[in-house]
């Protein structure tokens, strides 16, 4: 990878750490410890499910919130603080800046997710006293969550390349929610007719497919996930993120920064 992109990515990660983004880990640890102990006392035989469901849902939601709120500020904050002009005055191209920012935030989220995942696995070990082969699905679910973050980060970056931080956040959250129901959206499109069908189908396929990236329920019941799904989801998320980041670059290249 281009060294300038790497430098920007590393700086973005450092900045996120300096901004105390990783403080969410403390809340997460409390949630996991509290949830595991509490449910163990007040329920029967669902400790494992609760740890997996609660833990992975928290990993996903914490990460999405971070991806959106940091992602929307990646460009606008640099413009507001006027640091962008310093960066672009050096031999750094605009596309390198965008791609570097994207990778920086993805690295931040991967580190964050890795630490939270350790917490989930420790809690699982605490309630089940051992880790089994079926727990591999938990790892797959975490991997899918990371793919989800890659897509959300790319989208937040795309929206922030042309709109205000507030509007970018609203758009990113809206697309996240709609993407969760993407399968229904495609189902509805398939049932319509004529021009409506064409429009609805295009809209449905433009939305990210977050439903397929959510296998938390399968992980909670230690059900295996098809190898093909892992492969397709990986390629899908990378292609979607590629399209969104490339779109952000296209917009940012033409943006008047004066």
């Amino acid at each position, binding site marked *: 990878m281009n060294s300038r992109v790497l430098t920007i990515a590393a700086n973005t990660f450092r900045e996120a750490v300096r901004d105390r983004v990783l403080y969410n880990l403390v809340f997460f640890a409390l949630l996991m410890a509290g949830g595991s102990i509490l449910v163990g006392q007040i329920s029967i035989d669902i400790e494992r499910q609760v740890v997996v469901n609660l833990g992975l849902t928290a990993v996903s939601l914490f990460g999405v919130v971070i991806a959106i709120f940091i992602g929307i500020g990646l460009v606008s904050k640099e413009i507001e603080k006027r640091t962008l002009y310093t960066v672009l005055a050096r031999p750094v191209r*605009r596309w390198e800046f965008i791609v570097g920012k994207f990778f920086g935030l993805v690295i931040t989220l991967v580190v964050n997710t890795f630490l939270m995942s350790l917490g989930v696995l420790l809690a699982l070990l605490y309630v089940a006293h051992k880790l089994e082969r079926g727990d591999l699905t938990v790892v797959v679910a975490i991997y899918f969550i990371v793919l989800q973050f890659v897509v959300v980060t790319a989208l937040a970056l795309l929206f922030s390349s042309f709109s205000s931080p507030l509007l970018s956040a609203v758009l990113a959250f809206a697309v996240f929610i709609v993407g969760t129901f993407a*399968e229904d959206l495609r189902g509805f499109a398939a049932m319509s007719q004529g021009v409506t069908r064409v429009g609805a189908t295009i809209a449905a396929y433009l939305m990210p497919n977050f439903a397929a990236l959510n296998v938390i329920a399968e992980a909670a019941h230690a059900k295996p996930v*098809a190898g093909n799904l892992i492969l397709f989801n990986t390629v899908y998320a990378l292609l979607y993120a590629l399209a969104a980041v490339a779109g952000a670059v296209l917009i940012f290249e033409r943006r008047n920064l004066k």
Partner: protein
Amino acid sequence: MKSRGPVTLVFAVLTLLGLAGQALLVRKVDALRPEATLEEVLYIPSAKAVKRMGLGYTGLVADIYWTRAVQYFGRKHGKGSTRYELLYPLLDITTSLDPNLVPAYEFGSTFLAQRPPQGAGQPEKAVALLEKGISANPNEWKLYLHLGFVYYFEIKDYLAAARALQHAAEMPGGNPELRAIAGTLAQHGGDLQTSRQLWMMVYQNEKQAQLRKNAERHLAAIDNDEIVTVLEAAIADFRRRTGRDPKSWAEMNANGYGRTVPIDPQGDAYLLIEGRVEVAHPETFPFITKGLPPGQQPSIGPQIVVQ
């Protein structure tokens, strides 16, 4: 100043490649996850829970659930399915969220009541849905009319059907002609003429295009059943006189049974096969009970929901 042309071109191509590639991948992912398709997911089975989660926007949520019910039925109906497990729960949630959503009772009871493959074959649930609708909308005379239909055609309880139609006739805005039909129902329940009167009533009074179309198809099916009955009687008479089956309609005509080839209500000539009368296109002729090839079930016909 650096030229941006090549960068723009490269990233435009990447954007298009990414979008096209992800759309292709979505189809592959969908193929791997059949359980995630629209029809078998209720999400939240409790109307109360849905109401709470709707944050007070129950009207909009009801519209969404009603759309889901229509799409669920339409998709399964299109596939010729005979199992509609989620139909009643979807309709129940819809009407709990918005008890005044009258189309949900009218169409919903039709979807539920008609026998498979035309519907879900759950007339008791259709009655429950309509009674819920009547209790929330006591001035909607058409709900009594639909109730009468379900009792008459699906449950075959002619007295209950007559009572429902009597209610519909007596209500403000109700059709007074229904009073006479209610009387006929009580006396001659089950015959084709009474059925014709009922469907004609719907056809003449219904403003909803799909329900009118449904009535039109029922009327065509009644016409067909009557014509086939007459033709079968003629063939039986021919057989009794000659001791064999007629070979063709021309032979029937030559022996004094009609003057032309008989035509079904869809405009096609009836087929005469080994002394049996058959419609030419049973696959597009819903609700008929006569003129079907041996062993063939009535067709689902064109869909009434998704045109």
